[in-house]
């Protein structure tokens, strides 16, 4: 009779320790809420469609000075994220050279984008990467998978990099605007890596984050979806 009683006592002690620990530990985010609305996006000049009254989420002419690809500044002084460095032909390259298509006739209002987005929405957002308005994040924990192929401009930022205090995370936090828009993807389908990275970002104040639900597995099967290889975004 003593054995089960002592076992219960051990479990009770453990639960007490857990209670105190959860009290002093920073809150865990298991499922970050729906993303904030965020800022509307502005298409670069060459892809701006015809005249018309601007509406929320519509494509508009950029204001002077916006969308600059200058050297990234710390986020205190910048309104946009730095554009990822493009690579030369000698270095990791885009293997599918098909240019990102202009927006489809379907009107996308990014202000209504939810937590999960599909391929068309993801591809629509890809054209704003160069201007720094949208940043793609590859949440796969496998560096080799990232180097084998990723969405152009995507930064590798897996949840374990946050947990291990990786230097790239500090760099990201210092240079990327928490109010900007982010698209996170992992392998796709059942993978939780996007959700985990999104939770870590949410804990650090990044609240406009979308998950490309079907992820890399779908992206590589789509015609015209550009792919970058190598360890550079």
């Amino acid at each position, binding site marked *: *009779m003593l054995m089960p009683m002592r*076992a219960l006592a*051990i479990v009770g002690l*453990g639960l007490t320790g857990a209670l105190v*620990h959860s009290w002093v530990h920073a809150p865990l985010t*298991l499922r970050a809420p729906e993303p904030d609305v965020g800022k509307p996006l502005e298409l670069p000049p060459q892809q701006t469609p015809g005249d018309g009254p601007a509406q929320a989420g519509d494509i508009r002419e950029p204001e002077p000075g916006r969308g600059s690809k200058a050297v990234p500044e710390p986020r205190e002084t910048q309104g946009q994220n730095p554009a990822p460095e493009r690579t030369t032909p000698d270095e990791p390259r885009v293997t599918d050279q098909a240019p990102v298509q202009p927006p489809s006739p379907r009107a996308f209002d990014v202000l209504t984008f939810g937590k999960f987005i599909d391929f068309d929405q993801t591809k629509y957002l890809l054209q704003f990467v160069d201007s720094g308005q949208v940043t793609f994040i590859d949440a796969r924990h496998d560096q080799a998978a990232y180097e084998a192929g990723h969405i152009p401009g995507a930064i590798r930022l897996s949840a374990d990099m946050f947990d291990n205090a990786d230097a790239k995370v500090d760099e990201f936090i210092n240079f990327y605007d928490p109010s900007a828009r982010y698209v996170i993807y992992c392998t796709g389908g059942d993978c939780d890596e996007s959700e985990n990275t999104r939770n870590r970002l949410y804990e650090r104040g990044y609240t406009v984050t979308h998950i490309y639900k079907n992820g890399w597995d779908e992206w590589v099967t789509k015609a015209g979806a550009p792919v970058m290889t190598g360890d550079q975004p």
Partner: protein
Amino acid sequence: MRQHKPSVRGLAMVCRVVVGGLMAYAAYLKFQGIPAFADGIKAFKILPDHLVYVSAFAFPWIEAIAGVLLVLGLWTRGAALVCVGLLGAFLFAIISVMVRGVVVTECSCFGKTGFLCSGPPSWCHVAQDVILLSMSLVVCVVGCGFGGVDRVLYGRSGGSGPGAAGVPAA
């Protein structure tokens, strides 16, 4: 009270120290990354979120206490019974993931190190758990074996069998 042979008592001591040490080590690794462990539990898709939250803190604490008690040989049978419960739960979770075909990138059994087995839940993890479970059962049956605080405090029974304090001898 049956007196176990010295070889059996020696085996129990080895099992106790090995299982206890590994449980304490696993708990230490989990304490290093509670959020990662919570992600690991969530990925198994067995528990709802509120229980994932509780489990992420409770499992390492229970493992740590049971592990340290086993190594010390204090409340040995009770601690071994807790380990049987924990390892049984882990075994169920691993087999469940394998049967359902759920994508889990890391077992999270021993934090990120993986110990003997690494990567997604596999038969290696099942074998590892079955071995540790068997060793815990040996300790449950035999008691603390050689050494251990129980022998000092409660005599040869290890504190929970017949002949222990408050338990009439046969």
